[in-house]
């Protein structure tokens, strides 16, 4: 499952990030594989979307979010 499929309010653990450049971008702002994140907002058409991870809110475009593999946590 990838981050693009997460619904607002759902939480998930980041498993891996496809593409080294994107992985780099996300790790810089503090989104690291193994972290717990929550989808907190979506702009119209679901793009961009915003997640909260370690208390930081990060916005990204949908096509990037689809490269982030996640594991849904039990609610």
């Amino acid at each position, binding site marked *: 499952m990838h981050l693009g499929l997460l619904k607002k309010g759902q939480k998930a653990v980041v498993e891996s990030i496809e593409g*080294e*450049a*994107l*992985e*780099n*971008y*996300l*790790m*810089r*702002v*503090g989104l*690291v*594989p193994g972290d717990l994140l929550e989808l*907190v*907002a*979506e*702009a*119209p*058409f679901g*793009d*961009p979307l*915003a997640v909260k991870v*370690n*208390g*930081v*809110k*990060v*916005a*990204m*475009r949908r*096509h*990037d979010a689809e490269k982030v593999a996640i594991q849904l946590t039990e609610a």
Partner: protein
Amino acid sequence: MKIALVGNPNSGKSSLFNALTGLRQKVGNYPGVTVDRKLGQFQLPNGTLVHLSDLPGTYNIYPKSEDEAVSAKVLMLPSHPERPDLVLLVADATNLRRSVLLCTQVMDMGLPVVLALNMVDLIGKQGLEKKVKVLMTQLGIPVVPVSARKGLGLDDLLQRLQEVPSPRPNPFFVVPSSFDAELAPFLDRLQTQNRYLAWQASLRPDLLDLDLAANQNSDKLVSNELAVRYERIQELLGEECLAAPSDSEKTTDNIDRWLMHPFWGYLGFAAVLVMIFQAIFAWSSLPMDWIDAGFSAAGSWLSAVLPDHFLTRLLVEGIWGGLGGIVVFVPQIAMLFLFISILEDSGYMSRVVFLMDRIMRPFGFSGKSVIPLIGGMACAVPSIMMARTIPDKNERLITILATPFMSCSARIPVYVLLISVFVPEGSQWGIFNLQGLVMAAMYLLGFAMALLVAFVIKTFRKPSIAAHFVAELPLYRLPRWNNVGITIYHKCRTFVVEAGKVILAISVVLWLLQQAGPESDMEAVAKRFEPQLAAVQQDSVLKAQVEAEYAGAQLQASYAGVIGRSIEPLIRPLGFDWKIGISLLSSFAAREVFVGTMATLYSAGDGAADDESGRFAKLREKMAAERNPTTGEPVYTLAVAMALLVFYAFAMQCLSTVAVVQRETKSWKTALGMLAYMTAIAYLSALATYHLFS
């Protein structure tokens, strides 16, 4: 002593810089790049003078933007002239993990570091002492809790900066020995023993202009390094120390529920936009009138006290007048940046980016293009500089090239003149004022052309799909008024200096072109008017009338008149005569000059100079009465007026903008190309408009 401020974006670095240096700061530019360089000074308690540089905010030492590259270079290159003696690392207490990551990188580079734990007012007293203690022992550096916004802890910080701590002997991240062979040439080239520095250089040799090949998979290696560091930080500091506080986060979440909402969020943004327009157009008009009146009063005074001489007129009409034309825009620019810096400082701006990104993208813009485009309605010059924050190169270029199509305030006087002459005052469908409708249409026209041009440029300068857009949405904070004030001051100063040089130079050249002309023609004009002028010396009303006619005749005979007439065949198809030609020519310095030139040409000038509206009415009257000498038809038909309006909407009649585009894109080709195609678009659209209405 040289100290560099290093920290993540939104860590409160600029607040600390302002708190430490006050107004003893300068904003310049780093050579070769369009990145603000902020330098300041302050004194330590022991009397040492500190040169503080505020390095651009950076998440880590591997840059992803021009801004971050500047910070990386200053810290990486052992021989860099700005290499600091000490790094003051600003850590966001509400987001420690990321700040500490940068801190460990800087420490591993062998630089002495003092950590300022900022925003401690947000995390509460409990746990703070423990946090500071854990950080001090685990990182092995001085840690000072501060709140730059509230001015807390600054004295303590100054005390700590007096002693330069020794660099930490064992690095947080040990470069694997399997890379020794790769590192050797870099160690040699940088003349350093520090393996981590060589490692960084091997990953990004481009930064240091080294002609050595980069390590392969450098992105992967960087990610690995970051992962190792994050893990190490977790081990060292522990969960409790890293935990983010939740109070201010809750407030932000509650606000975002509205401001990022798919419906209310846009409504909120629309309200903000309306307020910005109100500020730029309504609230700034009073100070603009004062400046206008002040400049003309001072000008009249100067010409009264100084001897009647060519140099006096050059000073009063050429230089002083040109200066007034620049300063008059300062209130609008101040208003624009008042709002922009409040929006940025409060954290709202990144929400705007979030809301607008998807909507702007089909046109080749990014969410960050919204602000330059809005700013373009005040003035394109500072707005184009704001496009610096757009990370993708092509999205930035598209924003820069589209912004000048937005109807800037210099176009307003031209629109007002033409609309008031040609559009009847009646109302449409009983509600809308017809003149107001046409004015609104002009704004829409400019915006539509901005979108169209962006769309066209996008087809061959495609924003790269690989460009990642990852933006942090920081916590909401109340804006810091001294930061807002300092931003406004710097932006206005930049505008006056940068745009001012160009406008002033051109207005002097144009003034000279209007004064001098082929000798025989100028003499003929003088011969005709001097006796008349002498005859009416006693009668002030008649004298003013003759003087105005004299000035008009002089302008016709001048070089500006000669050029205006010589371009007439070129503009004839648009329905423009040579008088409009002269006015077009003179508005190359600044569009609003059009009105003044027309007034001189139609001798509507000085006669009623005390009364602005009287002068304006007279010009309108004369323009409406103007007949073509051969056909007897009115010169200013509806078709001509519409063509002129369209021409002014699209033409690049602002050399300051051309200059700023050149500076921001580092390309004369781009700047001159823009001048060429904007002129072409203006010409062809005016041609089409003329035929449509005639």
